[in-house]
């Protein structure tokens, strides 16, 4: 008998593994790095609806583009922004105009919640002092309180997060879904462990990944992965650690386009809905993309 490859085109992966209305969708990547943009653009093309979007502790265009597409009903996040480039325009607008429901969280909530989801833990109690922000007051469904049975004190808790689907970028995977993060993992590996279905996009498929890097570097086990999509430059305009840096000019042009609906519609038409994911890198220009490849000694991360 032959082992079954999990490699498939992006359109098939989203069609097959993402329901038309997704209860909880987790998107990987942090700030302008490792955002699984090839998968996200395809989700928008296929107009899959998302009841709850969960992000890493710092989301960027991954969340902002999905919110801009109008497919997201509510968002659980601790930050959506563009770091030194400014606020996230669609997130900001949607919250201010109340077209999205915001589940306000802090960074540890997302980390604790994903860990609880991954490990079957009923919740995670917070360290003392973190209950002092105003967040538990505005998110009483998810932030609750119980008794520390060792001290008798009241402690705040984070609810488990169990995404139905996670969209994650890894730099490399083998055909069975075993995968590596060349640089930072952020909370992406936790999302993989906590989610029912994981769709992975990678820069390159490497048949003998563990031989290339050593098995201890391959810390995403294939049995957690449903589909592997080869998507070179699939994080653009964000970076892929160890492969290429982020496209600051493109991000700025995105931010600018958000200032009026026509320009945003044009951006959408040009880069998302008007083209297939296959055409995307051609649209950006392969010369330009290659120029963003990590200039330094990337072997440093190997």
């Amino acid at each position: 008998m032959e082992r079954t490859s999990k490699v498939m085109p992006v359109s098939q992966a989203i069609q097959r593994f993402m329901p038309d209305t997704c209860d909880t969708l987790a998107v990987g990547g942090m700030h302008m790095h490792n955002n699984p943009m090839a998968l996200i653009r395809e989700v928008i093309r296929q107009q899959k609806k998302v009841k709850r979007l969960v992000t890493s502790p710092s989301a960027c265009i991954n969340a902002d583009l999905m919110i801009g597409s109008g497919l997201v009903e509510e968002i659980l996040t601790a930050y959506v922004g563009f770091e030194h480039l400014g606020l996230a325009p669609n997130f900001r607008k949607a919250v201010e105009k109340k077209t999205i429901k915001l589940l306000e969280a802090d960074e540890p909530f997302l980390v604790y919640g994903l860990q609880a989801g991954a490990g079957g833990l009923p919740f995670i109690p917070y360290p003392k002092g973190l209950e002092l922000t105003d967040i538990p007051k505005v998110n009483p469904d998810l932030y609750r309180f119980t008794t520390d049975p060792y001290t008798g004190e009241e402690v705040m808790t984070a609810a488990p997060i169990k995404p139905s689907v996670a969209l994650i970028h890894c730099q490399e995977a083998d055909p069975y879904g075993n995968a590596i993060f060349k640089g930072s993992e952020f909370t992406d590996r936790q999302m993989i462990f906590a989610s029912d279905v994981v769709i992975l996009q990678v820069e390159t498929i490497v048949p003998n990944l563990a031989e290339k890097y050593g098995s201890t570097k391959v810390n995403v086990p294939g049995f957690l992965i449903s589909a592997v999509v080869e998507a070179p430059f699939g994080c653009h305009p964000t970076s892929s650690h160890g492969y290429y840096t982020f496209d600051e000019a493109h991000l700025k042009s995105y931010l600018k386009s958000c200032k009026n609906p026509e320009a945003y519609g044009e951006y959408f038409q040009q880069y998302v809905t008007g083209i297939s994911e296959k055409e995307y890198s051609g649209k950006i220009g392969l010369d330009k993309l290659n120029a963003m490849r990590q200039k330094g000694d990337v072997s440093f991360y190997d």
Partner: protein
Amino acid sequence: MIENAYSIAELMACVMARNLEDGEVAVMGAVSMIPMAACRMSQLTHAPNLSYISGGSGAVNPFLDPLVFSSCDEENLRSEAALALPDVILLEGHGKRFDVFFGGGLQIDQYGNCNLICIGDWKNPSLRGPGTVGLPFLPRSGRVIIYTTSHNARTLIEKVDFNSGPGFLDGPESWASKNLPGNGPALVVTPLCALDFDEETKIMRLKSLHPGVTVDQVVESTGFKLVIPNSVPTTPEPTQIELEALRRVDPSGIVRNLL
């Protein structure tokens, strides 16, 4: 040419392997040479998409050519992937990650509860065992395959002195009332026979007798009243294909010479 004579431990590995299905995910703890061999040989025969994690090493799908004694040996890391132990604990706690958990004990009772803690009262044990490690996760695993290399009335007893690896607890009512994510013990593999569990009473039931073993021999070697069906088949001997796979996995005969 493979020598067709096989050892009892090799037969046990084959019985386990036949229970594993393609695409499943299995996990095992310490002193798991037989389950490790069973998983690896299954990948080479009928279950190329089976995944398994070798205990404390965190290795995912060790290539294990050859098999090694220790579940934490670095040789396990000649594998497809490797996880830190806390990640394995997350997977074990999740409740839907593992289809199969291999368990065992100093004592195994009629409901498949396992005991790795002590013989006698915990406060005043006649034998102190090593400790239970990961067995408490059994109720959160798809199904449990229990194995022992000592089929006798001291090991297979009516009720464990200490429950450190829950099976069907005190029987069907107590099990049903807990509403657990796992399906409980499914198979017991010993040097004498294979056993499963009666659907209604949740009591251990003779499933097949290893070649040359009689029902009386099993009954005498068991410390509680087994469910014995009217007709009990003989455990099929290892096939040529199974033996070839097993000896490719275990060229130095670690499993072969175990019993």
